[in-house]
């Protein structure tokens, strides 16, 4: 369920609420909590198999009791560039929302389009990395638990980035047509929260898959 319909429904809700926040905004926060739980369970899975494994990354080839070849296909360069791209998109998104709140629509459109472009660049970088891993390192989901957890988590995150880009496009067109804006800041606010959430998840994944692996 996208947050869009959450937002449109809340417009018909009562004007005064107990908390002072709109139903839609609390709904989006609850939705992001459930998303956190989803990623949390899969991150738990990763940490659990990583802890249970005698070495991480798992040994590719054992000779006797000795590990002859360590499995380490991840280069740090592309993911780091990708991280910078995604974090910058968080910054542009933040200022896009601030511009909207101040009614500076031109700045808002520019920053929103920049966010979308950066998001697409991130997806492109990830596609490049997947292709590289599959063709050069022969690492797929079915090979071992390393590949399985890596593609599962980064794939789920990629799906969320894709969903986020679609959400931002809806926001862009909707604002252009005057359906959202200063008078109805709920959907832009929801989109901003969602995009920051996706950013934050990536920081965790980056740490788990790249920074903490020797």
């Amino acid at each position, binding site marked *: 369920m996208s947050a869009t319909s959450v937002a449109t*429904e*809340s417009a018909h809700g009562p004007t005064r609420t107990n*908390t002072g926040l709109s139903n839609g905004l609390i709904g989006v926060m609850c939705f992001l909590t*459930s998303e956190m739980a989803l990623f949390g369970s899969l991150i738990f899975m990763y940490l659990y198999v990583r802890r249970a494994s005698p070495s991480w990354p798992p040994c590719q080839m054992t000779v006797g009791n000795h590990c002859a070849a360590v499995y380490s296909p991840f280069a740090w360069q592309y993911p780091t560039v990708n991280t910078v791209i995604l974090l910058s998109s968080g910054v542009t998104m933040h200022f896009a929302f601030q511009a909207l709140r101040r009614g500076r629509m031109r700045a808002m459109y520019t920053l929103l389009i920049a966010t979308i472009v950066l998001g697409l660049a991130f997806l492109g970088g990830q596609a490049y990395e997947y292709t590289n891993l599959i063709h050069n390192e022969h690492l797929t*989901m079915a090979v*071992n*638990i390393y590949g399985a957890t890596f593609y*599962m988590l980064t794939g789920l995150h990629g799906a969320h980035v894709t969903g986020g880009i679609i959400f931002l496009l809806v926001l862009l067109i909707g604002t252009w047509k005057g359906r959202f804006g200063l008078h109805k800041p709920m959907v832009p606010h929801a989109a901003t929260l969602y995009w920051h959430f996706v950013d934050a998840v990536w920081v965790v994944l980056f740490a788990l898959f790249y920074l903490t692996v020797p």
Partner: protein
Amino acid sequence: MATAAIGLGVPDHAQSRGGSWAWVRRYILSTDHKVIGLNYMYTSIFFFIIAGLFAEVIRMNLAQPGSKVVSPDVFNQLTTIHGSAMIFLFTIPMLVGGFGNFLMPLMIGAGDVAFPRLNLLSYLLFPPAGIIMFLGFLFGGAAQAGWTSYPPISIQTPPGLPHDYGQICWLVSVIFVGVSSTITAINFLVTILNMRTRGMSFHRLPLFIWAMLVTVILTLVVTPALAGALTVQLLSIVFGIPFFDPAKGGNVLLWQHMFWFYSHPAVYIMILPGMGIISEIIPVFSRKPIFGYKAIAYSSAAIGVLAFLVWAHHMFTSGIQPWLETYFMFATMIIAVPTGIKVFSWVATLFEGKLRLESPLLFALGFVSTFTIGGITGIFLAAVPVDLQEHGTYFLVAHLHYVLFGGSVFAIFSGLYMWWPKMTGRMLNEKLSKLHFWLMYISFNCTFFPMHIIGLLGMPRRVADYDPQFGAFNLFISISAFVLGASFLVFFYNAAVSLARGEKAPANPWGGRTLEWTVPSPPGHGNFARVPVVSGGPYDFTKPAAWFGPTPTEGSEELT
């Protein structure tokens, strides 16, 4: 559906024309929380009947040692689907979707839930989910690995099939149910936080709402985690991804951790709303303010916190670190404290009250007595040495049914007898209701109490056949189980007669003090003619009835 037959007084605007499409729009696609709540109830009672019939077939097979009513494969399928359907398709949707939807907005003085169309979506996801679970029977056999679906058994392909279609159906079904209940949880949480009427502070909330609040927070956090686990198992069955394959670095215990991180809180998702229902009924039928309002409310919250910290007590026999076993044992036993606070508060409320032993209170007393037994055997099983001995035996089956049948199902029927007049506008026959209670209470105990004994004597659970020395016990259990099943016929007969020609229900037949009793039975669309203003607690039986602001006039359409 029977809603039309009831002639439920829910005037959904612009649908006065006849025709079947108008009927569908009014009773199936309605966004009114009361209609959605009733639809949840009809659907989950339908699954309750099917899963109950499965249980009777299981008991038929177990009545005599060596009997071959069904093959061992089918026996496994029946036990798996019996458990899964009772939990995912009856207890949770009935309590949260049914009672929660119908009562929660009324009790907090709201016109509807925060997102009515999302509410409809979560109902519409539920019947297909249930049907998908049973579809496995058409594709070479349903899931066989038990409702817990432990790998490696659950990811093995049955001989002669390209995939384990039954297990795939099971996984898809539970993912659907999970999405549905997550949406409901978001909706309810926003409603309770944001849409309480004037004067309805947190310390004036009825205890059922407190219980629902904790329940939906638990649902919101653990159900997506279950969705993650289910997706992982689905990927490993369909695409052979080695999550549970030790040869490729996977781990079979991984599933048990991920599954129980959901399913232990799920036990509280099933019991907390039941406890809430009991906390509503006992004060009304004792004519006394509830003893320890804040203690009961905060003990729900404490149970909610502890629920996250105890999941591995289901895994003592699976092999976890000994120091972890000690931790989980103590954490589990601590849950007895908030649970005990509730039980003692209910007993203290009953003490020296002016008891009216009508059917809702009888079922509530049934709940308190049987649930307490289930709680005490829970302490047995939380102790690691006892659990190592009893985990694989009927003792555990007895414990589970005392908690979920003696607890949740008794609470559900208690609530049905309590709010039936409010939901349908008709009274039930009190004599038949009492007959139902006594039949159900006695046959329930005759069915499940002997399971403690045969469990301690060593009869293993999840078996289609057993040692002849347990024959006499099992025959007694099976006969009691048939009586237990038959006791529900009394309820269905009573319900049918009530719907057809029952006495019209007044707005407040039991003398309750919560807001739902201030509106006509059944309540109209939009619930309240005027916004109610609350100026006191929900169980204040010392004050005259109209302590809350202006009484809404019947049939007035001011707000709608």
